[in-house]
């Protein structure tokens, strides 16, 4: 399973990628939307884990751009914001079960990744 992590909190996204790699996944991380659009041109990913609030472009807009480039890619949103507005908008795109609030337990995230990958 190849996972792309996008979050402007570098220490979060790099640590999370390391932990997912230790669990047998191929995990890459970037901290902005431009780098996310660049990396999907070079490497294939099955799933993108997106922060909802990113600099310059929100995760929802990024999801649409990534989906247009990679139609097979699946998405999970991870947010620290947790507003009702974000929840409605993002869960309408990904399903409410794939809208996760920080901090998330690695076992929960792994279960969601496996579930969406197999689904």
């Amino acid at each position: 399973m190849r996972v792309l992590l996008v979050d402007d909190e570098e220490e979060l996204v790099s640590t999370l990628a390391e932990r997912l790699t230790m669990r047998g996944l191929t995990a890459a991380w970037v901290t902005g939307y431009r780098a996310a659009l660049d990396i999907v041109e070079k490497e294939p990913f099955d799933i993108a884990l997106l922060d909802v609030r990113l600099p310059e472009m929100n995760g929802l807009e990024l999801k649409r751009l990534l989906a247009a480039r990679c139609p097979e890619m699946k998405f999970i949103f991870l947010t620290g914001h947790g507003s009702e507005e974000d929840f409605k908008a993002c869960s309408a795109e990904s399903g409410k079960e794939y809208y996760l609030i920080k901090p998330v337990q690695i076992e929960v995230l792994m279960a969601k990744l496996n579930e969406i990958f197999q689904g």
Partner: protein
Amino acid sequence: MEQAHNTLDAVCLQVFGKISASVSHDLKNVLAIINESAGLLDDFALLAAKGVEIPADRLNITTARILRQVKRGDTILRNMNRFAHTTDAPVLQSNAAEIVALVVDLAARQSAMKEVTFTTAPAAGMIRTCLVYFEACIYLLLRQIIEVLPAKETVAISVTQEENTILIRFANGNGLPMIADQTFPGEQEKALMAWLKAEMSAGPGALVLRLPADIG
């Protein structure tokens, strides 16, 4: 008069809400990084129990990350606490530059989203006014500047005192305008500025807010 106070209180409540949401978002990130870092240490412990040697620098990097985030969280909470205590009395005295720097810190999430940088510098001028109205006014100005400026711009904020007036200057080295159109200041900003007896002048590359050092 009562209606004016209701408007001002509503504006301040909105600003307080926006700042609280931003602070809670930042704290969630702090907790998430601590959570992942503690989890990584747990992963290392499990590997070590299986006889895998864990390099000491990997442990050091992870514990240093936790300590950095604890410090970051403490700074966020200290700022929020200072902001909350500016409502302790209707009128309070404080260092104007320190209040401006506090509001810049509280708006850091919004400026980071647009990659706009605000620089501040210590200055001696004291202001005696309704500090929460003053903070709300500065916050709304910062939001306006963040909204209008292109990404990655820098704004230098300086605070000076001329006799009984505090001057707060927002300057952009590229000479960019910081007011979008005639809609700013809007009703909320006008109400705050009227109470604070503040005046604003704007030109290319600079915006200056003048207000009395003592509201009387």
